[in-house]
């Protein structure tokens, strides 16, 4: 009996080994979509671009229920508070904005008017006064027409300090101060509008700023410009049931479990340049982690056939998908605007040659391989991600993809440097930290890794007085312009005690002056200048080590069609989604 059991166990093990041994990995599964392609695009000048209906998607059909799989609940649904990728992309289904991006999913984007007829009129050509004309025939879910009044009210309510979480560009620009909620108190002035925002007539919305705000057409593409009638404002409770202006309206919201969107019959496709609204219903099914989601849509049984796994294919499962052509055809791969960098605390590591040596030493190849290679991350040598308009690739510290420890040692010039690397304590971050440590120690640095609890990580590293020298940080721009990246990350005049996006704590007067100069330029001319400034920053200050640009690989079921990765936020877009019949 015992002998037989031993044979059985041994046999089973031999089988496992045999199964895994039967294929040799020759490493030829690395080919992939070109994720380094820069974004090309502009602000639409022809008003026809902003007209609906959107061009038909080939092969698309109306009807059916489309499923969206996601692990956790979306932090906010209230359009004025939406700021997560899932929220930003999901809100397109139930909210319309002043402007929006027409996106082919291949990197070609055009900013067009959504509720507005054009993406804004720069009245005096000085970027200080902007006017938007609202389209005719746009309606809320209860059939009331959408006018400039409701859009202005939406912007006004984002001044409410209770409605946290959303972007703050418009509030800060209108109030001309980061403390916008003290400059204009929404709760006391519910019937009036913030300074600089006016509605001369029901179809006109006018912004007047003290300083030139050339990026306004981009900023108003964020969901914070979604309209809301004052009588439907439920304050913080709007998160539980938003009032729809888009092609769908919520019929059921169970936080963390399920959200159901059904057609809004008052939405007129003729007014909408981007949304199609093919399925009858969209269902957000929440709770599965990304491994489970991916396995579910790959198996594709039942409802999962018409589902998309928004969590992305985890690095562990990439080989399974790429090894099978049938599955590979159901994985979409695209670069996101999310750029990761190793921030160097310039107030602690004051020696430029040390910061340059760190740049030479870093091994990007091993870090990106651990994240799924070309399906998870592509090495990056610039502070701006390739998705930025006008992007130019350069490498200020050419050391090959695996780093150049010898060159780093030479740059260090025999100094012995101790560095403390703060890292979030989740598995992926700890593994990246291990690799950064390995690469730096090869170049003669001494590195101590300090784990920081994941949930408090960002709060800690954004403190001005934090005790670490290095940490991994990331930034995803809200629109693909250098203006929403470099000044945010490296302008030293905005440094405060806590909550710094400038985690390198760089404060260089020459650089700050450059920011002011470029920001005042015409948006079309800015693109090239940002890339030049990026190179200057890297060469003269080396405030960080660009690590990689995140790539998402998203799997979907056989019946899920029309899904693409939005070029702006790098998250699946649902505007073309349809259920294959």
């Amino acid at each position, binding site marked *: 009996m015992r002998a037989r059991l031993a044979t059985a166990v041994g046999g089973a093990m031999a089988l496992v*080994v045999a199964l895994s041994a039967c294929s040799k990995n020759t*490493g030829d599964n*690395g080919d992939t979509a070109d994720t380094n392609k820069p974004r090309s695009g502009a602000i639409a000048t022809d008003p026809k671009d902003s007209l609906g209906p959107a061009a038909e998607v080939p092969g698309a059909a109306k009807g059916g229920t489309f499923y969206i799989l996601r692990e956790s609940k979306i932090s906010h649904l209230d359009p004025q508070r939406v700021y997560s990728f899932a929220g930003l992309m999901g809100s397109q289904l139930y909210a319309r904005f002043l402007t929006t991006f027409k996106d082919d999913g291949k990197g070609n984007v055009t900013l067009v008017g959504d509720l507005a007829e054009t993406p804004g009129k720069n009245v005096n050509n000085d970027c200080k006064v902007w006017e938007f004309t609202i389209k005719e025939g746009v309606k809320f879910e209860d059939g009331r027409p959408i006018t400039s009044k409701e859009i202005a009210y939406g912007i006004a309510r984002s001044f409410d300090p209770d409605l946290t979480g959303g972007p703050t560009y418009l509030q800060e620009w209108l109030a001309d101060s980061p403390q916008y909620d003290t400059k204009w108190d929404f709760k006391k002035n519910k019937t009036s509008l913030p300074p600089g925002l006016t509605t001369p007539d029901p179809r006109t919305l006018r912004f007047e700023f003290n300083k030139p705000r050339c990026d306004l057409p981009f900023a108003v593409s964020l969901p914070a410009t979604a309209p809301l009638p004052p009588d439907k404002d439920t304050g913080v409770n709007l998160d539980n049931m938003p009032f729809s202006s888009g092609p769908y309206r919520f019929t059921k919201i169970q936080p963390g479990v399920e959200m159901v969107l059904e057609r809004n019959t008052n939405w007129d496709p003729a007014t909408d340049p981007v949304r199609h609204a093919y399925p009858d219903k969209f269902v957000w099914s929440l709770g599965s982690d990304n491994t489970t989601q991916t396995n579910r849509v790959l198996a594709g049984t039942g409802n999962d056939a018409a589902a998309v796994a928004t969590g992305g294919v985890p690095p562990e499962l990439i080989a399974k998908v790429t090894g099978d052509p049938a599955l590979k055809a159901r994985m979409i791969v695209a670069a996101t605007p999310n750029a990761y960098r190793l921030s160097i605390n310039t107030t602690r590591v004051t020696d430029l040659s040390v910061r340059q040596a760190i740049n030479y030493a870093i091994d990007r190849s091993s870090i990106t*391989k651990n994240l799924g290679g070309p*399906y998870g991350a592509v090495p990056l040598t610039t502070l701006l991600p390739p998705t930025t308009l006008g992007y130019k690739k350069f490498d200020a510290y050419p050391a090959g993809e695996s780093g150049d420890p010898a060159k780093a040692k030479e740059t260090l010039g025999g100094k012995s440097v101790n560095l403390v690397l703060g890292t979030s*304590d989740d598995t992926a971050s700890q593994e990246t930290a291990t*690799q950064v440590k390995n690469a730096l120690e090869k170049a003669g640095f001494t590195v101590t*890794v300090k784990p920081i609890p994941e949930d408090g990580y960002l709060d800690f590293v954004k403190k001005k007085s934090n005790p670490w020298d290095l940490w991994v940080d990331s930034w995803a721009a809200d629109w693909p312009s250098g203006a929403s990246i470099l000044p945010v990350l490296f302008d030293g005049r905005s440094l405060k005690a806590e909550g710094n996006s400038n985690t390198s704590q760089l404060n260089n007067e020459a650089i700050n002056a450059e920011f002011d100069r470029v920001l005042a330029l015409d948006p079309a001319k800015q693109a090239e200048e940002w890339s030049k400034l990026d190179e200057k920053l890297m060469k003269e200050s080396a405030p960080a080590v660009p690590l990689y640009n995140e790539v998402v690989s998203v799997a979907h079921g056989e019946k899920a069609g029309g899904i693409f990765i939005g070029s702006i936020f790098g998250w699946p877009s649902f505007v073309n989604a349809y259920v294959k019949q």
Partner: protein
Amino acid sequence: MSLSPVEGAALAEIESSDQEPDEKKRLVGRSPGQLVWARLRRDRTAMVSGVVLALFILAAVAAPLIQRLYGVSPNQQFGDLLDATGMPLGYVGGVSGDHWFGLEPGLGRDIFIRMIYGIRTSLLIALGAALVTTTIGVVLGIVAGFLGGVVDSVISWITDVALALPFLIFALAVVPTFSLRFYGPRDAVPTWFAVTTLIVVFAAFGWTGTARLVRGQVVSLREREFVEAARASGAGLGHMLFRQLLPNIWAPILVAFSLAVPSYVTGEAALSFLGVGLPESVPSFGRMIYRSIDYLQTDPAYVFFPGITIFALVLAFNLFGDALRDALDPKSSR
């Protein structure tokens, strides 16, 4: 001379065995320890599992030596042996003459040398924690069971409280504060400190099961004749507890111990995974197994090698514990 039934049973067994009469004569004069050893020697399972355990412990102790012979260090990365998506090239997860068990997908570190060092860390933590918890559990359980009354009530109450505290939440709250108390925000926390912290945390919670088990056993023993006899002849408390009662409850204690060791191996893995255990760069068996499970579909070899090793380790511990129990107390029913 002790009056415990262990020896009585041992004699009974020897008398009933069908061995040569002259051999029997020589055996009569042996001490209990020698008897146990003789019985273990005769048990093939015990010998095989014992040898396996000895090999594991040898591998753990001799890890730096093995590293020198093998020529690969546990944190060395072999990125060029991985394909573009981080999967090891070649057959069975990159098994080759240089990398006997292949490479970790993603990071590209050598699995064999990390397992050797992982066994070292994990066995140290697991054996340490199991020894401490068993000692605390046995002492408290035996005292509570034998003395009864107020002492029993108080100890049982403490046991209940310790059982009611949620282990993971406590560990998550205490472990980081522990290292912050002793090390500054820029100091490296040495591995031995992290290991000790883990043992302390496990010890604080792990003793309850053994304590309850031992208390129950002692309660059923304390009215037995040999205890009465010892008490009547004026034995002190220490003698009663550790010379009279303890030898009679070794069997369940050993079983509990042999089950505790593997559970601490996985417990350490869970804590490391939650970020309160050991840092990522310290090779740990538990973390390796946890991490490898994600690769079940794409790199089964990565799951196989650590999996089969922990399987062998746990099986060896359980079989050896079982055999030891049989050797100590051959009359008890299986």
